[in-house]
């Protein structure tokens, strides 16, 4: 009991905490990924912001990925707006893959390829 508790806590401690759900139930902290693609849609909505991007693989096949982020409320408090990222932007995304759903991830960082600007990063850590 106690051992399992500790193992769970270690996993949870490493996971994003803003989520209204349990990160671990949905995403695999041991399955990080990096993809680059063109944003097709942004859903600036509670409880989580979602955005979608077309990613081309090595064979040239395009797949549309779904990416989850924090709530707009948390992002606004970090200084961001609904217009900070827009359809057509080319972005590089680091994140963690969903356990089951294909081409779905939780975004850990988003970088605007054109300028190298990191979008949605905290303006001041620990605020």
């Amino acid at each position, binding site marked *: *009991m*106690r051992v*399992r*508790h500790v193992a*769970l*806590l270690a996993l*949870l*401690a*490493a*996971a*994003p*905490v*803003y*989520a*209204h*759900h*349990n990160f*671990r*139930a*949905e*995403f695999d902290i041991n399955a990080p990924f990096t993809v680059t693609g063109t944003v097709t849609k942004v*859903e600036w*909505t*509670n*409880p*989580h912001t*979602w955005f979608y991007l077309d990613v081309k693989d090595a064979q040239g096949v395009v797949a549309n990925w779904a990416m*989850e*982020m*924090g*709530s*707009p*409320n*948390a*992002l*606004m*408090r*970090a*200084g*961001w*707006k609904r217009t900070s990222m827009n359809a057509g932007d080319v972005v590089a995304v680091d994140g963690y893959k*969903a*356990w*089951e*759903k294909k081409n*779905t991830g939780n*975004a*850990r*960082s*988003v970088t605007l390829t054109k300028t190298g600007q990191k979008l*949605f*990063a*905290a*303006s001041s*850590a*620990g605020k």
Partner: protein
Amino acid sequence: MTRAFGAALTLLIAGTASGQWLGYPAKNIPRNPDGTPNLSAPAPRPTAGRPDLSGVWQPAADPGDAAGGIEGIVAPKYQINVMRDLQGAVPFQPWAQKLFDQRQANKMRDNPMIQCLPAGVPRLDAYIHPYKIVQAPDLIVILYESETMFRQIFTDGRSHPTDPEPSWLGYSVGKWQGDTLVVETIGFNDKTWLDGLGHPHSDAMKLTERFRRRDFGHMDIEITIDDPKAYTKPIRYVQPQILQPDNELIEYVCNENAKPVG
């Protein structure tokens, strides 16, 4: 670029960075000479000599934890596990242990918050969402950003209702003991979790929250969960709270786009 243009640009960026009323400099916040909020100033006490708890607050980040997520947010100490300080085993009643184990085996997928149901209390006392306390002479209102919910704490001397209808936030009455507001709450349903791990409670839970505003920017909530149907001993912990100066509540309508992934 001229200096004036640079200043205008800075203002513009600062202006567009705030959403709704975020960043509006509230007039009742004590400030340092440079304009930053002075969170160590004395707590205000305009109400018959008692401290005024009014303000936008948030459970304080656990200083022993690391930042996670894209916004670099640190969780409050008891967001995930209210039992973390216990020496020895959690004093579960057998059914509560069984239910807790089921929730673990299910990777906590039945967390009510995934279905956009209220987190309830005491979970909100240690959850990252902000809340606003509005203190009136006979009533204290807590506006929770989480699910855009309200909670009323009656300080007019009334007792708890008899055989109340079970509810998500229960029925709260408060009284002052010196500078501490002691809030007792009963009449809960059993649908909320105590924390992120899914420690359960029963509809017999009696919750005591002792609010003590240490200074302008810091408040402790000492939480005692007395629920003999679920636990053989009361559970007690203290979750510090930190004022959110120049911050404001934002609407939070979870159902607008909830899509569980797991």
